[in-house]
Every structure is written in C-alpha cells, then in structure tokens.
C-alpha cells in the first residue's frame, strides 16, 4: 500500500460535510475539500474563523464520521492531538496526564519532553494549579509523548502572549524536525504557518475547500524580513489571482 520507499502520506478527500441546524435545515460546512500531506512534513491550514477547520480536524481524527468522502491516515494511524483547549484530566497530575495519553513513553522520553517544554517543575502539579500557557504545554507534551504517526494541532498557541507563543512555536519546530512527524496544524496566523510548515493550505470561507497550496522553501529555518515579505506577497498574489 505504501508508496515505494516511504511511509504512507495523509490523504484527505472530503466531498461534503453538513451539520443539522436546530431549525431542521442543513448547514454545509465543507465541500470538495481535498489535500495530501507527505509523510514527515508539516502542513498548515489557514482560514477565516468559523470556516470549518475544527470540523475538518474532527473528521481526520475520527471523532466525526458523519460526512461523505474519505480520509487515509499515515501508517499505523497513531494520533497525537492538541485540541483548541488543553483538555487535561483535572484530577490527575501533569505527569499522570501525559502518561495516560502515552502509556508507552519511557521515563527518559518524559524527562526530555518536560525539560524542552519547561514543565520539569510542574510534574506533580494538578492542571488547576497551572496557568493556561502551562496547561497548553502539557497538552503539547502529551501529544508528543505518544510518538504519533500524525500530530494534529488546533490553534495551539492562541491566547498566549507573543513571546511564549514564539517560544513554543520554536520548540514545536525543533521536535517536529528532529523526529520527522507528519504534522497538521490549524492557525489563524500566516506568520505562524510560514514559520512552521512545509506547505500552507489556504482555506475558503464556509463551505470550506482548499483554495491554494503554498510550498515554503527551507521550512523552519530562520528568515530575513525580506524573505518573509516575499512569501507574504506570494500568498497575497495567489489569493488575489483567485478572487479575480
């Protein structure tokens, strides 16, 4: 089944997805949304609020099977997910939360992860004793500890201060690069997408589909302001061409 020499990629091909509204009608959220993500690369989904990004992630992670189309996960299909909210078990400590999500992680794995994410001092704390930023880092640690075949992140850095968001973004970049995990990240921020992804997928407003794919040269490497501006111009050009 796998393409020669490599691991299977993430294949998403959704014909349609609708929700029933309370009044009985159907609201179409996704239509003809398709993309593939090569094994070991990072894809960023960027789109307006409410366009259906979380809905799409729920379909990919198997939480919602009420759609038409198909989704093929990378080999083995082991998932690591960071939800839009931390979703930790409040009655278990930080360390227990990570271990319950990733029972196969070794002590050495956890030590390394907690160090990288600045959580070493909080291992025995309960989620109620953490700040939101710390809780988000625990959610990241849990998703990484799984050693997933597909890592899925739903706006993991939203509502954090800029410095912390940048720091976590760098940590994520390091982890993803060193382990070559196939990763799909949803974000509002084009800068964040450019900073992390091999490929940026631009989504339309609802019903959402992929309007353009922008490959990023030298992903996750430092860029000058000029290079950044060039990528921004490229994205604006793609979007502009489409709107004509």
């Amino acid at each position, binding site marked *: 089944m796998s393409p020669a020499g490599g691991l299977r990629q993430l294949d998403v091909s959704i014909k349609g997805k609708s929700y029933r509204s309370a009044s009985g009608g159907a609201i179409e959220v996704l239509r003809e949304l398709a993309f593939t993500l090569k094994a070991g690369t990072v894809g960023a989904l960027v789109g307006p609020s409410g366009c259906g990004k979380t809905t799409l992630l729920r379909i990919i*992670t*198997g*939480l919602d099977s009420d759609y038409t189309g198909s989704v093929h996960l990378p080999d083995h299909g*082991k*998932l*690591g*997910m960071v*939800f839009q*909210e931390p*979703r930790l*078990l*409040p*009655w*278990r400590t930080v360390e*227990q939360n990570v271990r*319950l*999500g*990733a*029972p196969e992680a070794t002590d050495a794995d956890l030590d390394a992860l907690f160090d990288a994410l600045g959580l070493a001092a909080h291992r025995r704390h*309960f989620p*109620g*004793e953490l700040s939101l930023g710390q809780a988000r880092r625990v959610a990241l640690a*849990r998703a990484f500890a*799984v050693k997933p075949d597909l890592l899925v992140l739903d706006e993991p850095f939203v509502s954090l201060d800029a410095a912390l968001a940048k720091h976590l973004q760098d940590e994520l970049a390091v982890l993803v690069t060193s382990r070559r995990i196939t990763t799909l990240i949803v974000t509002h921020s084009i800068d964040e997408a450019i900073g992390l992804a091999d490929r940026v997928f631009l989504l339309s407003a609802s019903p959402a589909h992929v309007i353009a794919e922008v490959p990023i040269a030298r992903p996750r490497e430092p860029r000058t302001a000029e290079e950044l501006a060039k990528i921004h111009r490229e994205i604006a050009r793609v979007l502009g061409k489409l709107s004509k």
Partner: protein
Amino acid sequence: MNVASRLFSLILLVAAWYAGSEVAGERMLPGPQTVALALWDEARSGALAFHLGATLLRVTVAFVIAMALGTALGVWMGRSRLADRLADPWLVALLNLPALVIIVLAYVWAGLTETAAIVAVALNKLPNAIVTVREGARALDRELDEMAHVFRMSRWVRLRHVLIPQLAPYLAAATRSGLSLVWKIVLIVELLGRPNGVGFEIGIAFQLFDVTRILAYAIAFVLVMLAIETFLVQPIERHVSRWRPKAA
C-alpha cells in the same frame, strides 16, 4: 474550637437525656448511666459484637450490591436517551414503592432467608443510587471523552481515570444518603424475619418493653456508623478531591 463546640453540644444532649429520664421515670426513659451499664453487659457477654457484626455484614453486602448496580444503571440511563425512556417508569415505580412492601414481598416470595433480606434492602437503596448517578452521567464532559477516544485509551483507563473521577461527587452523595438509609432498612428486615442482628434484638426488647436494651443497641449502632463516616467515608472523600484547588 470546632472540637470544643461539638463536645459541648454532646454534653448538652446527655444532660437533656438525664433530665428527661428524671421527669419521665426510669421505665419510660432510662438514664444515661443505666443504658451505659446495659451496653457494658451486652459487650462483655459477646452478644453486642455478635449482633452488631451480623447487622454490619448485611449493611455492607446490600450497600455494595446496590451501589454497583445503581452506578452501572445510572451511567447507562444518563448516557442513553433510549435507556432512560425505557427504564424511567420502572425507576419511578421502585422509588415510590414503600420499603415495607418490598421487604414483605421479598420474604413472601423467597422465604425468610438471608438472600431475601439482602435483596430487599438492596432494592430499597437501588433507585436512589440510580437517580443520583444518572444526574452525574448527564453532566459528563464530552470533550474529555473525545480526548480519551483520540488517544486510544483503553476501557479500563477510561473507566478509572475519566469516568469515575467525574462521577465521584455523585457517588459520594449516594454513599452518604445510602449508608444511613440502608442501615435503617436492615433493622426492619431483621425485625421482621431474621434470627440475629440489631433489629432482631430490638424486636425482642420491644416485646419485653425493655427500653434500656433498645437504647443500648441503638446507640451502639449509631456510634459504629459515625465511626465509619469519620474514619472511612470522609478520608476517601478527601483523597479523591485532593486535586481541587484549595481556597487561599
């Protein structure tokens, strides 16, 4: 302060009892010292331990059965609308059936046996456990459920680390009200059809108008239940709620 005020209230109770017995006379209301002596006699002869043990065993078995079954059914009804609609009329019927009717029917149908006694008590506690746990199951967090699903947590992990902790406050409430309900019903069951236990002893004392013995056994049993509440139920509750942030 806390201990002192409790102690004071307790001393007040004993004093009121003493005064009451002076007014009503030893036959109607024997004083604290008479009852204490009777309690001591029963304890020395071994009768107290024997009957207390028999009653406690029934309380424990009936309580465990009712809680286990009540939790399972409560979760089921709380999570499935169909189950709720199907089982709700039964639940309402059971809730409104007088305890005495259940006990008498159990004895009539199954004879004056231990099984009949236990089943009758458990059936009396069951609907209350179901209703409480169902409330908890309706309030379960769907987001945590989804998290458990995405991370492929095993059934056991979900039960122990996701489900039970969410139900803990409801299980605690059911335990509290359950223990006191169960021991009261066990006494009636023993009075009506068992050859031992605190209820049986109180029945004998009633036939002899022996108020001293009635009070001695009642007090002994209340003390035991108080000890269970203080040294078993409360520590467990503290342990399972240790994660809640403490007010500064």
